[in-house]
């Protein structure tokens, strides 16, 4: 861990605004239910394509994006549903996209792996591992050249650390002091391969110092720890102090994609991480507040459920692209 030592969650939570906390909870709950519903639709056979889901990683997306401003940007990967919802894309525009509808956020031309909406600060997900890292540096370069106080958060997984793009992107962000928050969601597995099979030093945040900037490993299932680390890092970026690398330790509760049963994850490991669920943990500390009760959480859960049910209903009937749409949007 870094020199920042978080105080106990129970006391830490008292300083937060109630509505802010409930908003964070709603955002995590929305991601979990969205992913549950998408998995169901996919297995049911009504949703086309493939899916890479983020069950269990909700706190990383929500904690980082809560520290960003509306005009800040994020880059994401093939596992981007959570990032998109946390950045403000609606379940509706995303479900439409997953159904390949013309009304989707990418008009049905992106799909699950390229989810994004640049008008909401998220470029389409980049599904080549590590590919978004240099792009995020470029987004940061544009902010710096224009002297705007924006930052970009660049999400990638532990697998991306082995890519040349990671080295090149971090190095350039470092030499030019770019406002980039590199967010490594370390969920221990690149597809089916465990991190210790492909990395001698598995403490990914160590890499930052080699490039000359600050890195920090954070409990990625502790929502407030992620939020606080991200807020500090974003502030440093805005001050022109250069990039920060946050390594968020988390765990993927579902397969890498589609019907992957995760036989490569041991039962002990799964059970340990399942008992460390980010949403359950957050609920536990939320309920220590005197002004937050189970009825608040139930109300949010019902609201989120309605939102998703409506969005699914909409998406099932959304208009599909016309065949002629195949040829549009190739050139500006």
């Amino acid at each position, binding site marked *: 861990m870094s020199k920042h030592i978080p105080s106990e969650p129970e006391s830490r939570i008292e300083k937060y605004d109630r509505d802010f906390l409930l908003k964070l909870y709603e955002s995590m709950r929305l991601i979990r239910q969205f992913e549950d519903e998408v998995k169901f639709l996919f297995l049911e056979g009504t949703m086309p394509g493939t899916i890479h889901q983020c069950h269990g990683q909700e706190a990383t997306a929500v904690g980082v994006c809560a520290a960003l401003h509306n005009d800040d940007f994020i880059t994401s990967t093939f596992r981007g549903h959570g990032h998109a919802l946390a950045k403000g894309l609606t379940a509706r525009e995303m479900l439409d996209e997953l159904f390949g509808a013309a009304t989707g956020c990418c008009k049905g031309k992106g799909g699950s792996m390229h989810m994004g909406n640049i008008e909401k600060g998220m470029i*389409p997900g980049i599904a080549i591992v590590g590919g978004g890292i240099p792009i995020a540096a470029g987004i940061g370069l544009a902010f710096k050249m224009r002297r705007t106080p924006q930052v970009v958060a660049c999400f990638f997984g532990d697998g991306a650390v082995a890519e040349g793009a990671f080295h090149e992107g971090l190095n350039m962000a470092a030499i030019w002091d770019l406002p980039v928050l590199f967010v490594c969601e370390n969920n221990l597995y690149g597809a089916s391969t465990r991190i210790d099979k492909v990395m001698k030093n598995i403490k990914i945040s160590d890499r930052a110092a080699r490039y000359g900037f600050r890195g920090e490993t954070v409990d990625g299932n502790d929502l407030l720890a992620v939020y606080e680390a991200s807020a500090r890092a974003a502030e440093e970026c805005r001050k022109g102090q250069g990039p920060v690398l946050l390594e968020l330790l988390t765990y993927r509760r579902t397969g890498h994609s589609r019907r992957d049963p995760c036989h490569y994850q041991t039962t002990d490991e799964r059970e340990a991480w399942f008992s460390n669920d980010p949403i359950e943990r957050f609920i536990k500390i939320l309920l220590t507040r005197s002004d937050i009760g189970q009825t608040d959480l139930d109300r949010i859960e019902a609201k989120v459920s309605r939102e998703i049910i409506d969005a699914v209903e909409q998406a099932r009937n959304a208009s599909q692209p016309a065949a002629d749409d195949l040829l549009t949007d190739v050139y500006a």
Partner: protein
Amino acid sequence: MKRQGIAESLRDAIAEEMERDETVFCIGEDIAVPGGWGGAFTVTLGLENKFPDRMINTPIAELGFFGVAIGAAMMGMRPIVDVQYGDFLFLASDQIINNAAKMRYMSGGKCKVPLVVRVPVGATGRGSQHAQNMERYFIGVPGLKAVAVSNAYDAKGILKSAVRDDNPVMIFEHKLLYGSKGTRAESGGVDATSDIPEEEFMVPLDRAVIRREGSDVTVLSWLLMAHFSIFAAESLASDDIHAEIIDVRSLSPIDYETIGQSVQKTGRVVIVEEGPKTGGVSAEIAAGLLERFGDYLQAPIVRVASPDVPVPFSPVLENAYRPDIPRIAEAVRHQML
């Protein structure tokens, strides 16, 4: 009016565009180094004095700085990327092909990537890895535009059009045509200078141009081969063979209108390409012409290209590799039999 080579006219074009629009910037290896070269071929020499904040000299990291340029372009900047030698594009091709070319489509038309990539190509005594004609690898990538400049006038006008275009544009430039001076001069260079008007002008990105009119056979080529084809046509004229020389110039999209008019007139086609014959640009042009104008052809289309081997070092072998004026002339004569 002033006489300039390609390196000089590109330099002026870049400076004028940077002056006109503050979102335009240059990024690449060995640019903006005081006492340095101005890129591998002097094109950006001295621009750092005028635009100290907009000449981004990068580490040797092609994948990385192409990604950086694309990210900046998506935010509304207009980067001009300088890759020292086209061969290095293989390192950057993930960013160019998977991101620059597809971002608009994948986003359903919401994103744009106004990116200019300047690519020096051609066999020039450097062996296999600083020599390839890279245009073949990019013309079939939807979302990219590709142009090849063979003289200083086109280079200036096309660079300006490319900077103002909202799509990724790859400009292929030939090392023997730059007219680079001093220590970066190339031996075996061919004169590609032009009279450059004082007033501003643009050259479209999607038009071929007739360099020499003729009625007997249409010769299609670009870059260095466009010059060699003109020289060949001059020698053929003494045998009363009148070749129409078209500089294809726009490699993606290909200007079948201009080329087609010529083919309908002559009924005979020779395509000249530096680079291996198999899978080359000439294969695409030949197929495209057959589909559109096959009924007008009086003889099979002939391609003059390099053999299917890597670019060799030995000058003897390199000269055998690169199509030359006698080979072009011979192919044209054969078409007339």
